[in-house]
């Protein structure tokens, strides 16, 4: 019984690593101008886990509508709750692989969990500030001493604006900033960010740049969303530059924290607004929902239709690796 569970777990890790290596390898050669929508970048982080989960479940729960085929093959180990003793040869290698994976992911998972606790505490404190309405949008104004405008929180995201920033911006800039933040709320980007961070913590071999590319693409979507609301992409580009100027007055950036886009992030966003052909649409769907729903469909299909096929394929692969 233990061997069956450990073998399924080890298959999950091995496949996530293999698919992740392929995805990360391919992504390295993809120029930033190719995929400017956020969903493909979210997919690069979710796909390895989805493939691994499908194979692992197919192994763990073989052929729900079929019968056990253990007696029919003898060229590979069998992972089957009916005959757990047949999985015994996989016990040691599976345990070793899982142990290595757990040790490698533990620091990242703990760091993420601790960070999240702090984030949720801070967001809770921000949420208790008196809300004010700007048009139809509820915002929290703060006197932060920095040119900040952000959206935070998963369940009920809160939009936070610095009072001095707000006072310094013109009417069109304000409209653009608010519409951009509304875009993040509508797309539930904080939820996607959280899911992707959790998935990255489980796959320490994936490069951080995949997440940064998703983040940048999400910003492009929200810029486009703001451009549609304001009715003028140049107005959003101007708002970006205005906030950039106010930010420059408080610049104390640590170069070590610069992301994959570095100084080109702002430049690329402005260029995308001025060149609509190079920009993604204002997709309002949530990336996790857009990916997970079809994946669940594929998973259900794999479990029901080929039935034993995937289970048998993974067992054969294990047999090849084991011998």
């Amino acid at each position: 019984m233990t061997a069956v569970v450990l073998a399924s777990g080890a298959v999950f890790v091995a496949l996530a690593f293999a698919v992740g290596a392929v995805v990360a390898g391919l992504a390295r050669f993809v120029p930033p101008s190719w995929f400017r929508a956020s969903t493909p970048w979210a997919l690069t982080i979710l796909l390895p886990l989805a493939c691994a989960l499908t194979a692992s479940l197919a192994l763990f729960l073989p052929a729900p509508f079929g019968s056990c085929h253990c007696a029919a093959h003898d060229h590979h180990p069998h992972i089957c709750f009916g005959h757990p003793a047949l999985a015994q040869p996989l016990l040691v290698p599976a345990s070793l692989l899982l142990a290595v994976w757990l040790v490698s992911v533990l620091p990242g998972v703990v760091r993420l969990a601790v960070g999240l606790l702090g984030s949720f505490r801070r967001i809770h404190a921000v949420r208790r500030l008196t809300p004010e309405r700007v048009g139809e949008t509820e915002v929290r104004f703060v006197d932060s001493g920095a040119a900040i405008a952000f959206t935070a929180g998963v369940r009920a995201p809160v939009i936070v604006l610095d009072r001095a920033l707000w006072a310094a911006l013109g009417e069109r800039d304000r409209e653009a900033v608010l519409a951009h933040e509304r875009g993040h709320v509508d797309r539930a980007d904080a939820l996607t960010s959280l899911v992707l961070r959790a998935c990255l913590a489980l796959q320490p071999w994936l490069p951080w740049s995949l997440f940064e590319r998703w983040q940048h693409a999400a910003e492009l979507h929200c810029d486009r969303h703001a451009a549609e609301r304001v009715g003028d992409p140049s107005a959003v580009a101007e708002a970006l530059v205005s906030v950039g100027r106010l930010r420059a007055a408080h610049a104390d950036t640590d170069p070590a924290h610069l992301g994959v886009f570095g100084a080109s992030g702002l430049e690329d966003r402005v260029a995308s607004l001025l060149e609509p052909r190079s920009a993604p649409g204002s997709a309002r769907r949530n990336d996790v929902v857009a990916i997970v729903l079809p994946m669940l469909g594929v998973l259900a299909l794999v479990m029901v239709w080929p039935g034993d096929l995937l289970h048998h394929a993974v067992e054969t692969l294990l047999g090849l690796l084991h011998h």
Partner: protein
Amino acid sequence: MSSPPSPALGELETAVLDVLWSCPTALSVREVLTHVRRRPPLAYTTVLTVLDRLHGKGVVVREKEGKAYRYSPRVTREAWFGERAARALAGAAPGRDEAVLLAFLDSTERVDPELLDKLSALIAARRGGRAK
């Protein structure tokens, strides 16, 4: 109402501010002294110094009553902690430090004034081109 950004406070300053927040009216130094629970008890002059420091930082307001001052907090407890939390959130790198935060402009974005000038010129040129 706009107020200055919330400065960092020491443990004693926070304890005194907690007393002011817990009372609906302005308090004298002696009243604060009776409410602060510390071991060993604080001296009158210590509380006076702390309140003076809080006033200097713009955290409390004071009004003269006879020969002494009465102190009250400038902002509510919620506003105080909310502002501090917002600053902490804003100073973080979205995604890397804060997994559930999306900023209009990344706080780690290096904003070069020359680049901003170049972008402004680009936007102006685009507007000019469209107007023709």
